Structures are given as C-alpha cells and as structure tokens.
C-alpha cells in the first residue's frame, strides 16, 4: 500500500516522487484574514513566537528526498535522537535571520540566498508545499521560481472561509447548526435579528470570523444585551474604516460530547481519498491534542466518510486540490455535525501521519499531546531526554512519547535574565491500551512539572 507521503505527493503534483519543499507557515489564517473586517481584534498575539516555531512540525512530514525550510536549526540532540530511532530526515534549509514575530515565509522572503537556493531546486523538479497558501507563499514561489504544489492563494483563501463551509453544507445537505452569514453590514443586521430569536428562547449563539483560526476569532453570546453590544462594536469599527463589508457568521451554539477532525486528500484529477478521523481534545477552545482512533460507532464513521467524499468533490469543482481537514462534532444525542469548518490546508494531524506509519503497531492507541510549560531558562533536548528517561519511545511498536516538535519548547525564551516564558512540548504518546496511556501521560506531566517547577496541565 502506498504510504501517506507518496499519496499526498501524487495528489499535489501528479507523481509520487516529486521532491517537495515544505514550509510550516502555521496560522496562515492571519494572512487570509488580512483586510477582512470581522470581530473587534486587538493588535497583539500573546504566543506568536511559539506559533511561528510550529514550523518544525514539517520536518517529520517530509521524507528523506524532501526539504524543509525552518526558522532555526533544530536542537542537535533532538536530531540525533530522531536518527537513533531510525527516522530518515529531510534536508533542512534554515533562514538567515529568525524573527520570532514572523512566520517562516516572511523570514524566507527576507533571505536572498535562500531564494536563490529554492530557485535552483525548481530546476531539479521540486515544488513548494506550504502548510496553507496565502499571498505570501505565492510571493515566495514567484520570487524564488519554485512552483507551488497547491492551488493559488485566491482559491485557498476562498475555500477556507467559514462562510464557504456553511454554504457548501447547505447546498450539499450536510447537517449543521442553524446559522446566518454576513458579507455586509446589512446582512449582519439581518443575522443579528435572526440570532435574537434564538437568544429569546434561552439558546446561545456564537459569532465567528470567517477567517479565524480554530477556537479563536469567536464570541459566544448568551443574551441580547451582549449581542447588541458586539453588533455596535462591529458597526463602530466599520464606520471608522468607511467600509461596509464584513466577513462574519452567526450560528446557534450546539453542545457537544466530542470534537472530531477528519482528513481527506483531493487530487489534481478530482479524485478524493479519505485519510482518517481523529478525536480532538480541546480545553477552553484551545487544541490540546488528538486521540487515535476516535471513539465513533459504525454509523457515525460512515457519515464522516460520506461527508468527506461530498466535500472533496465540491472542493475539486471549485478548483482546490490538496490536503483538507474538517472539524466536526457529535452532540449529546449522538448526532454527527459533519462540517463545522473546512480547513483546506495541512492540519496538526497531517504532521503526525508519517510517524504513525513508522512507529504505531496494530492495536496500539495514540494520543497526540501538547504539554504547556512555564520555563525560566532554555530547556535543552538533552536535559529533557534525561528528565523523561524511560518514558520516551524507543522504537516501533513500543510505548512512550515521541517528541514531534521541540522548537516550540524554547521559542519564547527571552534574552532578559530571570524572565519566565511559556513553551509547548508536542509529542505523540503511544501505548497498548488506554490505562497505560493515561498512566504514561500523567507520569510525563508530573516529571515535566517537577523539572520546570511550574504547573503542567
């Protein structure tokens, strides 16, 4: 059977052996949202440095014949450990200057030597494969001469709008919460009136930015006063900019018992391949990890696969090809809502597949986990390895943690002494059963907490 990477390459480029240059430009949504009026936004992000270093995930998606552009060279001890585990690593290209506040794409655009290198790779048949494609990745492709393996930024942006997701679900008859979309202030006014009728009956609604990152760019509204307040804030913002266009939607809040994320691949020829469904673990709206396999019954699994086919065919008609992740959920009655939003880009899960193929044995379960850390100084991989001695994965079929991004641990490190910073340790936790998995998870969190003297949640 063809492995995931070969299948993605075939879907993206038409050939299983095309060398790809991966670019982990996470939170590409910020770029898609540029110029779109939505919920009132504050001009800061608390964790940009950490998010931008999520670029290192691409290293474990790429194969030995591929390349990855990174903001900074990975920790040598981390690379050495991956080598010991038998992971064939891609060739790594590092930008000349890592600006922590910028995505890897922006750093790459500011590096003339790297642009030249990328251009040379084009001559050897390589193609650029970003996490998601915005005008910046398009600019990188144009300036370097390395062609994009994805569709244009315009197509990618259009199909990643939550307004598009709602429209497609309506047109294809896929179940979704009651809701209304707004491209203009007039449409927003109508949507607010519709939402009001739900609030009167004690229901809640959620107002969403069309281009918000999952779990961000949303406001949950419980009463009319708050709805009117938000509406006024949006109108005020529009009056100031003199633009009556908005990109918003309002939906009824549906309680859920499980968040799901499924992935499929749409090939250039329009064929659709269902990849997998995972159960997402979120805490307060923030993605904390995935459980594999998802706890779904046969009927639900069938519905997910059907939705993937329907959405994939529609995306192909609209000019998209590539990896697609869809957020879905199960309500307390066991009803599946198969399309909450379409993310026509790589997803967290995408970056785990190659490692799953390499290390997970039949019957094992996997928890893709994120451990938040509060650090007072850089934590080198070598020390982490000692701290987690006996708990790290030692090879295929074993149980333990495989770190799948280490850059995010120290991304927030400051030059100022004694200033603490937040980091994240991402890993795949493998075990033969749920009990062992839970025990391992607790032991890892405990040891990390003891080491960092902070609270590892």
């Amino acid at each position, binding site marked *: 059977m063809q492995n995931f990477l070969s299948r993605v390459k075939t879907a993206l480029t038409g050939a299983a052996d095309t060398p790809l240059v991966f670019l982990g430009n996470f939170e590409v949504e910020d770029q898609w949202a540029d110029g779109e009026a939505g*919920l*009132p*936004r504050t*001009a*800061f992000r*608390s964790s940009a440095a950490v998010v931008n270093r999520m670029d290192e995930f691409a290293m474990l998606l790429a194969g030995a014949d591929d390349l990855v552009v990174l903001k900074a060279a990975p920790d040598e001890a981390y690379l050495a450990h991956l080598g010991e585990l038998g992971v064939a690593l891609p060739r790594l290209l590092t930008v000349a200057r890592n600006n922590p506040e910028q995505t890897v794409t922006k750093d790459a655009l500011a590096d003339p030597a790297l642009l030249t290198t990328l251009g040379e790779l084009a001559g050897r048949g390589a193609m650029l494969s970003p996490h998601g494609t915005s005008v910046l990745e398009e600019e990188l492709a144009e300036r370097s001469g390395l062609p994009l393996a994805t569709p244009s930024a315009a197509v990618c942006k259009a199909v990643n709008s939550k307004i598009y997701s709602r429209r497609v679900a309506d047109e294809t008859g896929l179940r979704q919460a009651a809701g209304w979309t707004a491209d203009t202030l007039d449409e927003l006014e109508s949507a607010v009136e519709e939402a009001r009728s739900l609030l009167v009956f004690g229901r809640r609604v959620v107002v969403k930015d069309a281009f918000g990152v999952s779990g961000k760019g*949303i406001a949950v509204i419980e009463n009319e006063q708050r709805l009117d307040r938000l509406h006024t*804030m949006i109108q005020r913002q529009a009056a*100031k900019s003199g633009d009556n266009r908005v990109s918003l939607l309002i939906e009824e809040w549906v309680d859920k018992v499980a968040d799901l994320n499924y992935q499929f691949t749409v090939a250039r020829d329009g064929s659709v391949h269902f990849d997998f469904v995972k159960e997402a673990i979120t805490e307060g709206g923030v993605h904390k990890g995935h459980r594999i396999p998802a706890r779904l019954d046969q009927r639900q699994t069938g519905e997910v696969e059907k939705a993937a086919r329907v959405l994939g065919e529609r995306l192909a008609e609209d000019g998209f090809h590539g990896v697609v992740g869809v957020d879905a959920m199960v309500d307390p009655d066991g009803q599946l809502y198969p399309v909450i939003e379409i993310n026509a880009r790589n997803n967290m899960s995408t970056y785990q597949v190659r490692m799953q193929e390499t290390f997970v044995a039949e019957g094992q379960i996997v928890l893709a986990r994120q451990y938040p850390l509060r650090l007072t100084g850089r934590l080198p991989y070598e020390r982490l390895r000692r701290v987690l001695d006996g708990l790290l994965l030692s090879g295929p079929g074993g149980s333990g943690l495989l770190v799948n991004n280490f850059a995010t641990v120290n991304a927030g490190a400051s030059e100022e002494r004694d200033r603490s910073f937040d980091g994240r340790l991402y890993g795949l936790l493998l075990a033969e059963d749920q009990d062992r998995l839970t025990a391992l998870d607790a032991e890892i969190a405990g040891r990390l907490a003891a080491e960092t003297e902070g609270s590892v949640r």
Partner: protein
Amino acid sequence: MSETQVIDPQKIITVISAALADVLKRDPDSITETTRLFDDLGLDSTSVLELLMRLEDEIGVEFDTDTLEQRHFESVATLADYVAEQA
C-alpha cells in the same frame, strides 16, 4: 466618546476584577490590582473580546481596539488606567 465622564478609579478596578473573574471563571478574591492578565490568568484573544464587551456595558466606555496594546493588558492596574483614559 459621546460624553465625558469621570469614574472613580477604584470602581474601575472593582468592575475589571469582577469581569475577569466571571469571564475566566476565577475566584474574584484571587484577583488584585497587580494580577497579571496573561501570565497569571491566562487571558487570550477570545476572552479579551468578552472582557471588553462587559466593560463597555458596565462602565459605559467605548473602546477603540486599534489603540489597545499588549502593555495595557499587563495587569489589572494597567488596564484600569487605559479604561480611565477612554472614559
């Protein structure tokens, strides 16, 4: 701002603390003037918006989100100063 009003600084602190406790589901007694919003309370972009909506409702100010900077959210006291400037 449609009208100028003077609000007691202590009242602003009290309203901000109560709003934060409510939005972030914390014990109101655990929040003081020096409590840091990101570091101690884990404020994020979604909760910032909810907080601003509440403060507009309860204090009668109108925020211009373009002028809000990270430093205004350092602590309860810095946010209170900003709110007082806007009122």
